[in-house]
């Protein structure tokens, strides 16, 4: 396998997503990069890092799709964040031509997937970073005498980051818009002591059941529609209206043909398989 083969493989992700041979591709890229660095070709080494990054993004995206199909929603959620981070590092160094490697599509779909998740609250750790080093030169970070390697740049085919080598945990906060999206709080099962996933993933499941390929584009639109009163039988006439207007039910939506509630519309570029072609009302 040579560089051209790798490029062809990456361009064929929509066709080969069911039969990936990424280990072989990763190995080829690693070897090519070692040669490029040894010959001092920094531009080529950087380009090969970009291809490595594209491979990782594609693989994670395909794995995410697979997690959603098998209802491992939180695992998929965590991978979406990995993809988000990888794309933000990649786009500084790589301009994709006409979605040739599907990065533009993945970048479009990741926030759409995230918008379907029920998570609203996250735990945010506070950390005192006592010592950090540069991953390129391994030197401790000096504020006045910087090593010269910039975070986010590529050196010898490697992304420059800071590695925290000594830290202290200060505390934890509850936030609604975290830096790390993986820090989702879960309930603990009283009997087993293990965490249990108590979230409702109806929307993600509805979508995943109907998508036939991770690379089929789809859309999401959030609107409000009137939902049948039969869905709100447990709400008393004098209780607050389920539309959350603050009015009493009887003075608000009960006067209308239904309760005005958020509604999510999904659109597919490829029709779902026949067994999932129903579009009935879902809670």
């Amino acid at each position, binding site marked *: 396998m040579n560089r051209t083969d790798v490029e062809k493989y990456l361009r064929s992700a929509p066709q080969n997503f069911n039969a990936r041979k990424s280990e072989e591709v990763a190995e080829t890229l690693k070897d090519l990069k070692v040669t490029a660095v040894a010959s001092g070709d920094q531009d080529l080494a950087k380009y090969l890092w970009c291809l490595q990054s594209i491979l990782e993004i594609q693989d994670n995206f395909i794995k995410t799709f697979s997690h959603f199909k098998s209802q491992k929603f939180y695992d998929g959620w965590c991978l979406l964040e990995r993809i*988000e981070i990888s794309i933000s590092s990649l786009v500084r160094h790589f301009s994709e031509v006409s979605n040739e490697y599907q990065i533009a599509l993945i970048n479009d779909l990741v*926030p759409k997937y995230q918008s379907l998740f029920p998570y609203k609250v996250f735990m*945010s750790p506070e950390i*005192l970073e006592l010592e950090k080093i540069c991953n390129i030169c391994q030197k401790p970070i*000096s504020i006045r005498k910087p090593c010269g390697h910039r975070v986010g740049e590529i050196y010898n085919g490697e992304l420059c980051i800071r590695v925290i080598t000594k830290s202290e945990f200060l505390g934890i*906060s509850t936030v609604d818009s*975290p830096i790390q999206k993986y820090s989702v709080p879960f309930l603990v099962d009283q009997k087993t002591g293990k965490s249990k996933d108590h979230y409702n993933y109806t929307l993600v499941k509805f979508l995943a059941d109907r998508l036939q390929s991770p690379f089929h584009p789809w859309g999401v639109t959030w609107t409000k529609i009137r939902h049948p009163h039969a869905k709100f039988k447990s709400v008393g006439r004098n209780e607050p209206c389920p539309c959350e207007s603050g009015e009493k039910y009887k003075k608000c939506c009960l006067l209308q043909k239904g309760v005005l509630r*958020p509604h999510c519309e999904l659109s597919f570029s490829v029709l779902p398989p026949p067994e999932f072609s129903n579009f009935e009302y879902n809670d």
Partner: protein
Amino acid sequence: MADTNETLVIEDASESFATWANQSFILPETRQSILKSNLLIVPWVGFRSLQMPVFPVCTERLFQFLKENATHEVIPEICIEDKDYKEVALHSALLIVGAFVVTALVAPIATDLISEYIKRTMFKHDENKIENAKRKVLNEKEDCPQVRVELTVVEENGKALKFHYEGPAEDFRKTINAALKAPAKINNSNLPEKLKSPPSS
């Protein structure tokens, strides 16, 4: 006179370049350098009962950015010794840029410089569009990139005003620049809790 917009609060300050240069954790050589500067990044002292001065995460990058992009009239410096430099990561989407002391003369240029840094750092704006469309329908607060900056502007006569900004990243520049032209102060006792320093997460 009170500024009722909680995005920006302005109050009298007693800070100066000298007060920071004379901190016990600053050595003589750095002291001289601080006194020669006109845009100083200052640490949080007493944050979460810590015994050491600390800076918000990414201050290293901020300082390099200021040094590399400052025009000749701006002299950036940071109020810490190399060996004492520590960062705190609060891991919230709010970008805590940091606290600065700046001379009135270069305050508008410094604001532009900090604003440019914010612009380059806040790369995720477009990604919020889908989430915001959903939040709008759910009657939830929109997720706009938010920043927190504390800017102490020292005039030639030694008087100082502290500008506490916490709000949309894209409004930082115009809000501060407008306030620099016509500052409306409020008393420290009226300072909203979220803008008191050192900041809580």
